[in-house]
């Protein structure tokens, strides 16, 4: 079956531009996560949705970052007034349940954002 998909796969933005990154989770998955992965580093948590509710946004680095999942499926991560330090791979992951044993997260391929 289809896994987590993300679009675009690559995005180049000029500093100050706004960008929108899309995540299509696995169908039926309740939980959705966004992570940021800087070059040579491990992914770092940004935010978490359970259905349409954003339950944890403690990892968002600034108020320029905004995420939504209005219908509880597709999610969009928006970055306003991009800065060079926003350059990274943005990963989306989904899991079937809201809790329970293991609750494995399945990752998409990521969107590589380069801010010039």
């Amino acid at each position, binding site marked *: 079956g289809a896994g*987590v998909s993300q679009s675009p796969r690559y995005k180049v933005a000029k500093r100050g531009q706004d960008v929108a990154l899309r995540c299509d989770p696995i169908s039926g998955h*309740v*939980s959705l*996560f966004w*992570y940021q992965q800087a070059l*040579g*580093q*491990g*992914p*770092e*948590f940004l935010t*978490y949705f*359970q259905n349409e509710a954003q339950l*944890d946004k403690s*990892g968002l680095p600034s108020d320029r970052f905004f995420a939504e999942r209005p219908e509880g499926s597709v999610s969009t991560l928006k970055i306003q007034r991009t800065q060079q330090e926003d350059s990274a791979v943005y*990963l989306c*992951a989904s*899991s079937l*349940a*809201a*809790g*329970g*044993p*293991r*609750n*494995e*997260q*399945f*990752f*998409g*391929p*990521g969107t590589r954002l380069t801010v010039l």
Partner: protein
Amino acid sequence: GESVGLHLPTLSVQEGDNSIINCAYSNSASDYFIWYKQESGKGPQFIIDIRSNMDKRQGQRVTVLLNKTVKHLSLQIAATQPGDSAVYFCAEKGYSSASKIIFGSGTRLSIRP
């Protein structure tokens, strides 16, 4: 604060040999650990996991060892193959919750022919 880290950033192994990747963690309350494999241009892929009430778990060609006394994890890959070339991350999360994953900084495994 919480952190999961790795001893070595790179590891080069002869094809066919066994690989051992090490990881240290600092949060003694951590109860669930996962190893991920990330190939170039792809997202992290689950390899194997272990709960804190275990000290060893085996999968297909992989074994994870957990030493809670010294807060150390290792991933052993038997008979390393070219397809094993990737970056490997140890990670920690809550076992029974939809909680965030806390990743270490990764070890790049390269295979010599």
